[in-house]
């Protein structure tokens, strides 16, 4: 099997697989992530492309540059709806905005699969959801942190993403994980805007305001990379820095010792799973439901191991490990 | 006989700006059916009085009486409702709009429901222009017209209001003799209809012809009320300046035989068709012609602004080609443009920056300016030319028009230009400042520099030029000694159709 067995979606959230009516030969599939600004979605796209090449399907990617440009993404979905595509693999920062358009897609007989998500009850019925559990991943890294550093009191800073589902879930998972542990005290939590620049500024600022911070958790790898430069600049090489994603550059930073650990969510493999499921849906052999892709916690050793298998990564590491 | 009640009367009106008392207890009576001249040096407060009467600003103290009753003119709209129409000194047309719309701006004819009646706008404005004997299409975009035409639109705008009081603040600065005559005709007609007219101009010959009475201001005060001065240029001048001025045109003759500059058969796409002349060391060559005859365009052609399509220019016997203004300046030419406000001055600089602007290359070594030399050179010039000493410390927007004009000319003294083209150098400056400019011209020619003088003031042109070139339709028709030309000759010559006897003009030497 190319992917783990799917879990059924919530009541009424499953669109009927047998109503999917592909029109093209080979299949024409649109990959529509929320933004091109995140390597993460490019990595998923590479997984999708890899499978498309194996299986002989046609894929194209369409996404706005900025993740904040939801209006732009809706415009693109609208433009895709006027074309004869057979399937849409999408990710969005605003499911309620996308719902009416995706409903139209389902009604037109397209297969609609959501990636990088664990929402079992998308506001309109769709065919499949592929992704890791956002909450479980960061819960795991909290557990890992307790195991490795939990023996003495720690002051923790959190760098959130821009407000929304992903930020809430990831930060929520981390907070759930450390809840009840007296040694963890969250002293500050601010927005790092999902990017390196924002993470750097946020890191600079929270370290200025709380020079006694011991640990920073950021809701993605870019922000923790940005924060790592701030820590370095302030001579804080002792601070524990935790991220989320398993972005290649994030892993390289961990291998280099600049960042402590991350949740590796293997976007490339997620993309492969999503593409297999979509093709199966078009063939009528996919039962529908949520495919949970695995997550692991990688510290410097683990990161090295992952980097030694570059065929499972995108982008490629900058050097051979 | 009891004096009639004036239509408008100012009683002890004062108005101060930061640092100046622009109107100081001014009293003036404006009678229906009379053209009232308001005269005085630059900055004596004429425009201030007019702005007060037009509702643009409120007086600090004093009363304004309308038919003997005190009124408040709260804004320009109120002035309009009280029957006041004003042609302001600063252009107040909107260049992006059509002529017709400009004429009715702020007062557009509207149908029921408040919808603008465009048919009526154009029909009515065409009628007004016809009354002025001006041939401009009402659909034309005003900004594309010549300066003179725009000025006529301004006047049409005031006429269209059918006002009982018309105020004209230097309406003729951009007009030629011909247009001035037509304007005067119209004003006389309106006066005879019982309209009150307030008229401001620095061209005293013209004032002498049109006004019925004059009020003279000095430093914001009325120095001669209506009826106290005979309407005659020399009386007016001595009242304005406060002393007798013996000679209005102190012309010195410094022309030599040596040819410095020569143009042969110049033509451009901007309207210059056939321009040939020679200019001698120390000579003032006047360009005479009607409005729009293309004198400014000749200046532009000589200065490298417009590309030549035919002909050649020689400097000191050698053929030169100016691809841009920079080339002309480097070769020793200078242009004092007709609109010093828009084309001449840097209002963000003090006098020194303005004076050295054309000589930065000479002041700099490896790109670094010698600020000491700049300071000293400009201080000397400011003293030499009797420019207000304020100019050393303040930016030039604080200076009077005459001082500003001297600074623009000083720029070319500093750069040591050999040939100066002065386009309307005395436009809008008072008689005292005019004489200063004439003396400056003498100083220049005495130092061996040559001058091309463009002026719409015929008396000035005749008096200050050594020779005069008659310009028609962008071509120089002939060149004659100024002494051999009378005022009437000049008017006739420049208005003449092409004179076949002078197709190949023999240049007359001074």
């Amino acid at each position: 099997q190319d992917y783990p067995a799917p879990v059924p979606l919530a009541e009424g959230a499953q669109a009927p697989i047998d109503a999917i009516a592909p029109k093209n030969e080979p299949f024409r599939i649109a990959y529509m992530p929320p933004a091109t600004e995140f390597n993460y979605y490019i990595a998923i796209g590479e997984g999708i492309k890899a499978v498309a090449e194996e299986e002989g399907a046609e894929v194209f990617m369409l996404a706005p540059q900025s993740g904040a440009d939801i209006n732009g993404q809706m415009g693109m979905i609208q433009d895709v709806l006027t074309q004869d595509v057979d399937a849409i693999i999408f990710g969005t920062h605003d499911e309620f905005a996308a719902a009416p358009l995706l409903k139209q897609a389902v009604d037109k007989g397209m297969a609609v699969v959501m990636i990088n998500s664990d929402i079992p009850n998308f506001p309109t019925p769709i065919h499949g959801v592929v992704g890791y559990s956002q909450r479980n991943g960061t819960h795991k890294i909290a557990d890992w942190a307790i195991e490795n550093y939990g023996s003495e009191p720690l002051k923790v800073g959190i760098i959130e993403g821009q407000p929304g589902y992903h930020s809430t879930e990831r930060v929520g998972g981390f907070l759930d994980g450390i809840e009840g542990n007296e040694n963890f005290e969250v002293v500050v939590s601010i927005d790092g805007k999902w990017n390196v620049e924002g993470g750097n500024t946020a890191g600079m600022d929270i370290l200025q305001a709380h020079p006694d911070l011991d640990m920073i958790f950021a809701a993605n790898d870019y922000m923790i990379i940005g924060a790592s430069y701030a820590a370095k600049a302030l001579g804080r090489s002792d601070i524990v820095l935790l991220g989320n994603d398993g972005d290649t550059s994030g892993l390289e930073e961990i291998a280099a010792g600049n960042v402590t650990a991350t949740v590796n969510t293997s976007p490339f493999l997620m993309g492969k799973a999503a593409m297999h499921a979509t093709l199966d849906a078009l063939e009528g052999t996919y039962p529908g439901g949520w495919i949970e892709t695995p997550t692991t916690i990688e510290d410097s050793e683990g990161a090295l191991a992952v980097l030694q298998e570059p065929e499972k990564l995108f982008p490629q590491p900058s050097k051979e490990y | 006989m009891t004096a009639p009640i004036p239509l408008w009367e100012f009683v002890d009106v004062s108005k101060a700006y930061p640092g100046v008392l622009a109107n100081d207890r001014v009293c003036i009576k404006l009678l229906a059916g009379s053209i009232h001249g308001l005269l005085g040096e630059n900055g004596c407060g004429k425009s201030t009085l007019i702005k007060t009467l037009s509702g643009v600003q409120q007086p600090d103290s004093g009363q304004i009486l309308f038919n003997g009753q005190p009124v408040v003119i709260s804004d320009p709209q109120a002035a309009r409702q009280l029957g006041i129409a004003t042609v302001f000194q600063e252009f107040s047309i909107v260049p992006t709009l059509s002529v017709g719309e400009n004429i009715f701006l702020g007062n557009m004819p509207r149908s029921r429901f408040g919808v603008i009646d465009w048919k009526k706008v154009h029909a009515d404005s065409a009628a007004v222009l016809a009354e002025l004997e001006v041939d401009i299409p009402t659909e034309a975009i005003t900004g594309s017209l010549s300066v003179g035409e725009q000025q006529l639109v301004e006047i049409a705008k005031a006429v269209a209001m059918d006002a009982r009081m018309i105020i004209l603040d230097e309406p003729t600065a951009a007009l030629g003799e011909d247009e001035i005559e037509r304007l005067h005709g119209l004003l006389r007609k309106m006066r005879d209809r019982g309209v009150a007219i307030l008229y401001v101009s620095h061209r005293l010959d013209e004032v002498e012809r049109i006004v019925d009475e004059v009020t003279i201001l000095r430093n914001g005060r009325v120095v001669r009320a209506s009826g106290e001065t005979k309407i005659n240029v020399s009386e007016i001048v001595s009242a304005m300046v406060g002393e007798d001025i013996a000679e209005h045109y102190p012309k010195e003759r410094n022309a030599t035989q040596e040819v410095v500059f020569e143009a042969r058969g110049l033509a451009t796409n901007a309207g210059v068709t056939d321009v040939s002349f020679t200019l001698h060391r120390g000579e003032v060559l006047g360009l005479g012609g009607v409005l729009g005859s293309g004198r400014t365009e000749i200046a532009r052609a000589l200065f490298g602004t417009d590309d030549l399509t035919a002909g050649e220019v020689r400097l000191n016997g050698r053929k030169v080609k100016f691809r841009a203004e920079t080339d002309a300046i480097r070769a020793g030419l200078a242009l004092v443009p007709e609109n010093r406000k828009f084309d001449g001055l840097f209002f963000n600089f003090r006098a020194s920056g303005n004076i050295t602007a054309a000589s930065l290359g000479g002041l700099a070594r490896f790109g670094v300016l010698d600020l000491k030399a700049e300071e000293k050179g400009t201080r000397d010039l400011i003293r030499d030319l009797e420019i207000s000493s304020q100019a050393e410390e303040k930016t030039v927007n604080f200076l009077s028009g005459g001082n500003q004009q001297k600074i623009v000319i000083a720029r070319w003294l500093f750069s040591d230009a050999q040939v100066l083209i002065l386009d309307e150098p005395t436009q809008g400056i008072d008689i005292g400042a005019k004489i200063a400019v004439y003396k400056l011209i003498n100083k220049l020619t005495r130092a061996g520099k040559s001058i091309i003088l463009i002026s719409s003031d015929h008396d000035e042109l005749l008096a200050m030029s050594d020779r005069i070139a008659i310009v028609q339709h962008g071509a120089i028709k002939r060149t004659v000694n100024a002494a051999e030309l009378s005022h009437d000759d000049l008017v006739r010559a420049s208005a003449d159709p092409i004179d076949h006897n002078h197709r190949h003009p023999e240049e007359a030497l001074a």
Partner: protein
Amino acid sequence: MRRVFDTQLIGPFAAMVIVALIVALTTDRFLNPGNLSNLSLQVSIVALIAIGSTIVIFAAGIDLSSGSMVALLTMILAQMLKFMDLPLALAIPLILIIGASLGLLLGLITAYGRIPSFITTLAALIAFRGLALTFNNGSPIFSLDPALEPIFYGKLIGIPLPFFYLVFFYGLAAFTMNFTKLGREIYAVGGNPAAAVLTGINVRKVQATTFVIAGFMTAVGAVLMAARLNSGSPNYGQTLELQAIAAAVVGGASLAGGRGNILATLMGAMTIVIVQNGLNLNAAPSSVQNIVLGVIILLAVGIDMWRAEISALMARIFRRTPKAQTASEKKAA
């Protein structure tokens, strides 16, 4: 009518048609009816906001605040609908009033505070987004009111509703600019404010009014944005102000003020959207979209600027048939 559809429209119209032709040649999906009605949805928000931006430009101002104002207004609308349970019929008029009031505030600061509009609205661009973040802890508010969506996605006789909004508001704007006192005063103020003062036009009031119009139209755009996305978010509308200005500029409005045709802005907006649509239909990456949009802005303004040079060049190229001859040829025919 000749006044409304004047020669200023020829250029932008030609540009739009040329761009549409090129797109139609690259993909046969462009001209299918579904896509054409899709276009009117795509253009609607930016084109409606651009009405205000253009009118501000006509009066020689500039409005950089509209994108942030959209974010702020969608958040206020979301707040009203989701947490205050106001009915739509009340919330929407309130949003329009708030938009107009914010515009009024900017207008007053600009006109009566004598602060250049670039600066006033730059400050607003920054501050409004900050204000938007104060609602709901800066989190987007999703899933507002089921009745909101049809405002954007609804149809009347098979035509998307936004098409009618465009017709209505552009019709109103064209009428205002060409046939009312206010419209002409806006042009006069943009063309020469000093002259406008002297002719008794209340210049400050007119300037402030253009910002009220802009605020109102931004609110209309914000309501459509919230309806389209069924949510409010402090991140919405980023760079929307630049797109609206781009529409005006591609339509030929001069930033110096005083001239331009409001309908040309609609064509400018259409041109931009057609290009984006064409690139989307051809699955061009967003990098290409940005580059093409930049080039279009330059070209549109450039062609307008170099009109004289271009026609001189054309004349030289087609020298054998100078104008006079063509005219006589016509007579002969």
